[in-house]
């Protein structure tokens, strides 16, 4: 198993990280070593072993659907990098042709 620079670039895209060229080289090397080391989980985990996703078993934790006070829109927007007319202002979401 080996992870290429191109694969790292693809991962970076999926993770929305605008990695620089030197970072791609560096991470390709490091990810290779780390993934080789963690791949040993496959040595012991047999097909008949169930997966554990959560340490303390709980199912369908629900609460009564009762209205309660929430943040005001001003509070919710208080940390926004940009806000306009009581809403989050974001960059354009569609490509302009």
């Amino acid at each position, binding site marked *: 198993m080996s992870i290429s620079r191109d694969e790292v670039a693809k991962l970076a895209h999926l993770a*929305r990280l*605008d990695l620089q060229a030197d970072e791609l080289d560096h991470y390709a090397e490091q*990810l290779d070593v780390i993934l080789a080391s*963690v791949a040993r989980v496959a040595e012991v*985990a047999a097909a008949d072993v169930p997966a554990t996703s959560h*340490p*303390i078993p709980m199912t369908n934790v629900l609460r009564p659907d009762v209205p309660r006070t929430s943040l005001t829109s001003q509070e919710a927007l208080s*940390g926004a*990098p940009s806000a306009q007319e009581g809403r989050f202002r974001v960059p*354009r979401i569609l490509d302009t042709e």
Partner: protein
Amino acid sequence: MSNEHLTRLSAAELSQVLSSREVSAVEVTRAHLDRIASVDPSVHAFLHIDDEGALASANAVDAKRAAGEALGPLAGVPLALKDVMAMRGVPTTCGSKVLEGWRPPYDATVVSRLRAADVVILGKTNMDEFAMGSSTEHSAYGPTRNPWDLDRIPGGSGGGSAAALAAFEAPLAIGTDTGGSIRQPAAVTGTVGVKPTYGAVSRYGLVALASSLDQAGPCARSVEDAAMLHAVIAGYDPLDSTSINEPVPSVLEAARRGDVRGLKIGLVKELSGEGYQAGVTQRFNEAVEILTGLGAEVVEVSCPHFDYALAAYYLILPSEASSNLARFDGMRFGLREGDDGDNGVEQVMSLTREAGFGAEVKRRIMIGTYALSSGYYDAYYGQAQKVRTLIQRDFAAAFEKVDLLASPTAPTTAFRIGDKVDDPLAMYLNDVATIPVNLAGNCAMSLPIGLAPEDSLPVGLQFMAPAKADDRLYNAGAALEAALKDRWGHLLIEEAPAL
């Protein structure tokens, strides 16, 4: 009482002198703020010091006491809060540039409980960025230094909280433990740290790293102090769907009992030997002899799958983290980069995350993205979750035979700043003994057991108990602490440099 004297007192002692009105909460708070002003420039335990808020809380406590209101035992006792907890109106960065300047509009449940108990929050402590690390070197705001030796790391990710205790800047602190971030800093700073059972302390308002592993807990300089804090922060919270809806184990009573006669303690074979520093092993063996002398029955147990815990953890954690950290996209809070009117939203997100995250965070996001991607999911994430089951079974089998398990908390004492920062695998090994508990969801405590002969730095012992039996940790911890205190004539922390 002098400032110097007030900062040396335990939370239990402060509780007494406050309730007997020998000192006011304002005096206690000022003493600690003065200590912070004097030593924190060299320790750098704090990212934000909330002088104004702390003094206002202290004033309120004094007013309530003067009015004859019944107050809780920790009323007026100062505390340092790890910067991963949301606190209304107070900067919360998680040690990251991506959250620089963010002031949460709400309190974490832990903070609400501390406020309700009239605890005085002094400020926010330094940490590895988003709690990823074992040295606090991955903080975007510079490392915290170990009060025992300023050239060394204070552990991580909660190095700031542990260092604040060891530097006598605060008698209590809050940490969070995803793979050892409370216990390993406690071990290397000569302090006490507890990772409660998963779900025992609410995660509401705790910025998520790995949701199935994260657990907040108490940090202190003594077992009793940790228990007092545990009792305040633990308990059911409807705002956290993973919160345990059962009574909190009687940790304070256990900490005041401290009796190991007849208890069976298992030493985990896989958490010893190769990779453990000689002085760590020596002090551990001595502590085990003390426990035997106190009447505990000590046996060796094997947990064969612990050898795979580190590998499983470094798949599960990055997978959950890569998903959790998707929220830092520069749209609703925190940093936004490249919003020049031309760039589209995805470009702005990528530029923001590239600028806002440090190297270790990016590394783990990419490992997680890889482990969850189609074609690799079964081989990595799926297999790691099976290992998690095997580790739970190892614990269950061990707890059939013994009441508690014990091991060194960390394989080495504090290493030098810079030694491991560019070697992720070497860094990850610091957590080899603490990780199994996070994967299985049960609870553990680290407490100081002496200084390693070769470097005169603190060594920690870890007790591990079954889920929801957190009181067992406090009982055994108190017994061992008392025996060591008898031997030394004081707690180990009293030997920390004056600074």
